[in-house]
Every structure is written in structure tokens, then in C-alpha cells.
């Protein structure tokens, strides 16, 4: 299994976890175990990419959804439909930001 997708500048963990979900089960600890600094003025982190509507975010998300739709594991019609919807939403959001229109194609 390939690890983190090196094409992606953000959401690389989401992309991997989706693929991993077909291989294993996940456990969730209800306890808070980590603090994340998302203060706007902080010096490190990629959080601002989302709020700045950086075009790399849109490109990453579209790449991710297309990749998921191409996975042989993704056969559930409901999941495929949801991915298509999310992909379309991201593309339309990108259009609102003046980014080029792309069609999200894949098996449905």
C-alpha cells in the first residue's frame, strides 16, 4: 500500500486514511490527547491555505476525489455518489474563486 500521496500539499492524511479504511478498523479515543494551534497569527501550519482559498487546496481535493473514485475498493454506490457530490462541490467552489472549470469524471 502506498503511503502519503506526494502530489498533495494538504489533506494528505485524509487521503491516506480513506484508503486505509479498506484495510483495517479504526479506534477512536474520546479523550483529548492533542492541542492544535490554529491561531491566525501563528508562524507554522497549513491551516491558512483553506481560508485563503489557495488554489492548491482545490487542486488537492479534486486530485483526492478522483483518486478515490479510481480505487477498486470503492464499489459502494452510496459512497461513490457522496464522493462525486463532494468533488462537484469543490469544483464549483473553485469556480467561484475564478479557477478553471474541470469535470469530475468517474464510475458512478
Amino acid at each position: 500500500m502506498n503511503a502519503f500521496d506526494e502530489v498533495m500539499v494538504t489533506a494528505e492524511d485524509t487521503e491516506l486514511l480513506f484508503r486505509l479504511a479498506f484495510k483495517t478498523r479504526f479506534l477512536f479515543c474520546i479523550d483529548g490527547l492533542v492541542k492544535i494551534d490554529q491561531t491566525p497569527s501563528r508562524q507554522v501550519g497549513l491551516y491558512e491555505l483553506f481560508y485563503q482559498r489557495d488554489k492548491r487546496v482545490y487542486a488537492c481535493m479534486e486530485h483526492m476525489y478522483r483518486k478515490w473514485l479510481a480505487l477498486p475498493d470503492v464499489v459502494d454506490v452510496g459512497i461513490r455518489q457522496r464522493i462525486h457530490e463532494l468533488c462537484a462541490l469543490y469544483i464549483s467552489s473553485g469556480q467561484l474563486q475564478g479557477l478553471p472549470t474541470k469535470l469530475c469524471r468517474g464510475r458512478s
Partner: protein
Amino acid sequence: MPPDDTRERLRPYMGRIRYFYQDNHGVSAALNKGIQGARGKWFSRLDSDDVWLPTKLERQLKAITALGSEFGACFYRLHLRWKPGLLRWNQDLRLSAFQQAGLEACTEFGRLMPPLAGCLQDILLSASRAYSFCVPCLKR
């Protein structure tokens, strides 16, 4: 890796840790480099804007080993510092869905992302951030 003083800061721990350096090719490439160099059974990432609470790894390891090999990854709740001095729980960013779903399979994963255009960035970011995780090293 960013051009910072990481190497110097880690110097006191050399011998207990192994430090890998590569030119900046992005976060995924850095993570993959770490995975490729890993010798242990477990993998966990610590982003530059995150702080692990003291018992984080201990509690994750205890929980996941108690449940057996059927479970391959362990997630956790997190605090978000989004204004100076203020911490809030992650349910504000709709992560309570994780707890309700149990994160057991891809169907639950799909359920995390309601098609709400206005909130899309937040939801995806939440999913991404919550996925700081502890998994058996992927290469093994």
C-alpha cells in the same frame, strides 16, 4: 524539512532518536521518508502546530493493543487553539461525528462529510486534522 534549527534542537536526544533530513519536497514526502526509515511497529505524526499531551502515545497504544490486531489505527479527540489563550473542543468543528460513528469503516468516513458547501473547508479540514493517528508502520 523547513530550514530551521530542528537539527540543533534535537541534538541532545541523538542516540535515542534517529533524525532524517531531506530538502523540502512537501509534507507527504517528509512523512514517507520517516516511514521508510522507521524500525518500530508503530507510526505517529506530530505536525509543527500540534502539541501532544503527555500521555498521548501511552493511551493510544494501550487502547489499540487491548483490542487486538483487528484495529490498525487509533484516533483521538483534540483541542483547537483558534484564538489566543482560548482552547475549545473539536465538536465545534463537527468532529462529534467521529465519536458517533466510531470510525470503524469507510461508510462512517463517508458520513463525516455532509454536502454543505458553506462549511466544506471546515469539514474537510476537521477530518484532516483529526486524522493525526497512530498506525502500525505502513511498510510492514
